[in-house]
């Protein structure tokens, strides 16, 4: 029983981390219909910024996280405005090609700057844990989970209670109509992309503190975000959290009760089952119906 609870707690926390990584990816896909293949690279850039701040200036990664997010917010805005805006109306494969190219450049840039070595942001406490009746709860992961929930709540509030959030939502539903209402679509898109990049950077800082990272991880992180976004459903700010938690629990329980080698098969099995039952993902349906393409 202890083992089951331990696996559940750990899976839940792991799910929070998954969600943290995927939330920005899901936002951009949901609002702009862009599958950002450079998302994993953004996460890594955030991790490297936090790592550099930690090793060079001794700044705690949980503070460095804000600096990383700020950098990527600006970077994301510029990238969207100058590059991705060019293909936002183009067929999906153009955006795939562009973001894939961006990913290659970022990953190779990171290799050139930091080599392909594995890094980890060392803190005295992130891998420590407290125990409740023999169940271990690691601080770093708990913080990651709390952050994922907090950011999701903030995003939900932002999207439904602020003018800017509503503008983003409206642009996502029907760009032409939104423009007719006086919403500057370009600016809104750039802002959405900037928010997503900032979220990715924050996730990178946390991920780099809890585990290890190297430039080669970019593809894996993007794929993971893709699975979670599809699993959770697009266009709903809760989607990433739901997808992340489901995936985290599936992996934890699968690893505990079936062979550890099957973890990936179980994760994708869950995805297939969810998509059969709910083709728009766990929470995806209500919003996507409203989308008007073009």
């Amino acid at each position, binding site marked *: 029983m202890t083992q089951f609870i331990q696996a559940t707690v750990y899976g839940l926390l792991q799910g929070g981390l998954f969600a943290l990584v995927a939330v920005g990816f899901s936002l951009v896909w949901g609002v702009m219909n862009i599958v950002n293949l450079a998302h994993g690279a953004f996460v890594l850039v955030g991790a490297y910024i936090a790592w550099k701040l930690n090793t060079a200036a001794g700044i705690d990664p949980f503070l460095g996280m804000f600096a990383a997010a700020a950098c990527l917010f600006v970077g994301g805005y510029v990238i969207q405005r100058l590059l991705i805006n060019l293909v936002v109306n183009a067929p999906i494969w153009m955006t795939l090609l562009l973001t894939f190219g961006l990913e290659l450049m970022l990953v190779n840039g990171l290799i050139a700057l930091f080599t392909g070595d594995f890094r980890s942001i060392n803190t005295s406490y992130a891998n420590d844990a407290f125990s409740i009746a023999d169940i*271990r709860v690691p601080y770093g992961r708990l913080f990651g989970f709390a952050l994922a929930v907090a950011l999701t709540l903030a995003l939900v509030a932002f999207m439904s209670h602020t003018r800017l959030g509503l503008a983003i939502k409206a642009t996502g539903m029907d760009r032409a109509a939104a423009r007719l209402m006086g919403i500057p679509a370009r600016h809104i898109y750039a802002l959405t992309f900037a928010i997503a990049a900032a979220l990715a950077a924050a996730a990178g800082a946390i991920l780099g503190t809890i585990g290890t990272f190297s430039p080669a991880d970019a593809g894996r992180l993007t794929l993971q975000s893709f699975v979670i976004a599809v699993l959770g459903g697009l266009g709903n700010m809760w989607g990433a959290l739901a997808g992340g938690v489901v995936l985290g629990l599936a992996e934890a329980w699968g690893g505990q009760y079936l062979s550890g080698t099957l973890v990936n098969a179980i994760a994708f099995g869950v995805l297939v089952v969810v998509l059969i039952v709910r083709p728009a993902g766990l929470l995806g349906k209500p919003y996507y119906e409203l989308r008007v393409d073009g």
Partner: protein
Amino acid sequence: MTRRHPAVLVLVVALAAAGCGKGQSSDAGSPTGDTLKIGAALSLTGSLAKEGQLTKQGYQLCEEIVNSKGGVSAGGKSYKLAIAYRDDTSEPDTAAQLVDRFNDQAIKLVLGPYGSPSTEAAAAVVEKNGQVMVDSSGADNNIFTKGYRQTFAVLSPATSYAKVMIQALASQAKPKPRTVVFLSADDGFSKTVAKGGAEEAHKQGIKVLATETFPEKSTDVSAAVNKAKSLNPDLVVGAVHLVEGIAIIKQSKELGLKPAGGFAETVAPPTPDFVRTLGASAEGVVGSTQWVPQVTGEDKFFGTAQEYASSFKKRFGSDAEYHSAEAAAACLALVLGTENAGSTEPAKVRDAIARLDSPSFFGPIKFDSTGKNVTKQMSVIQIQDGKPVTVFPTDQQQSALKWPAQ
């Protein structure tokens, strides 16, 4: 569109530049009568880029030292060594294709790619083409069970990796561990490592409580760690590569897995990244390695292991470690084989390598009928005060084993 948006042009140029930067590295020039051209397909990019670069450094050092000492003398002629590198992007299929392309270019002598999967793929092609390959890093025993005659490995086989640590702990750890759990990645190499380790544990009277597996390259090994914790073993042995090795130590700390003795892991602990990423948590972890600078034996090109280490440091500025040493040793075996054959003809070189029996900075090089270097012994290190020190075998020992480790 480009007129309106110069950014597109910038992107296209940058993408093209990134594309050009990949792959095609230095070519060895056109073959002349006095050049011995050797092919090496290596993981210069992709997930194994780090190890691929280390392997390349070993090959480069060998090429430079052999050439500085007059080159390869065979049949009264002296050949300049020229190694052509190609990037297999860490994909076994690509490695095999590149080796096949070497054959099309009449390059019959080949140095191994990085890692067991790529080596296994390349070995099949080498066999078909009648090329000769000296393998520097493919340790999986499966490579040597297929009856291949053209592939030789200078390194100890996978079964030795955990076995040598069990031997070291059984003879030196006080108290001797009574129980062990193996945590293994699910690739062929790691599974063979775990199997070899479990057999040795039986032999040494250490009870194997379980072998838990997780996917290769996984950064989350929590399920295996959680299961191991419930078994409360004296010793936890990881049959892993670097990423999984780091994950085991990190997640054991999170989940409170504290074996009474300590942790032992293959591959990961001797690499500088292990201590750098884990900091204090790396302390006391035992690891096995193909080579340490304390290895005895010398050869005419590199001298002793210590001399090899100082040449390496002088050339590359970093400390010599085992990946590059394996690579240099593979190149050495190919050079010595060619010299003994007195010819660069692949069939003759093959036979001479098969008969090779030579000491070297890497330890003894002598192959059994399947192409494995079985005379060489692996070494065991332990992280002490943030550095890997050699603890086993005793003639290489720098410092005594600390046990319990933490």
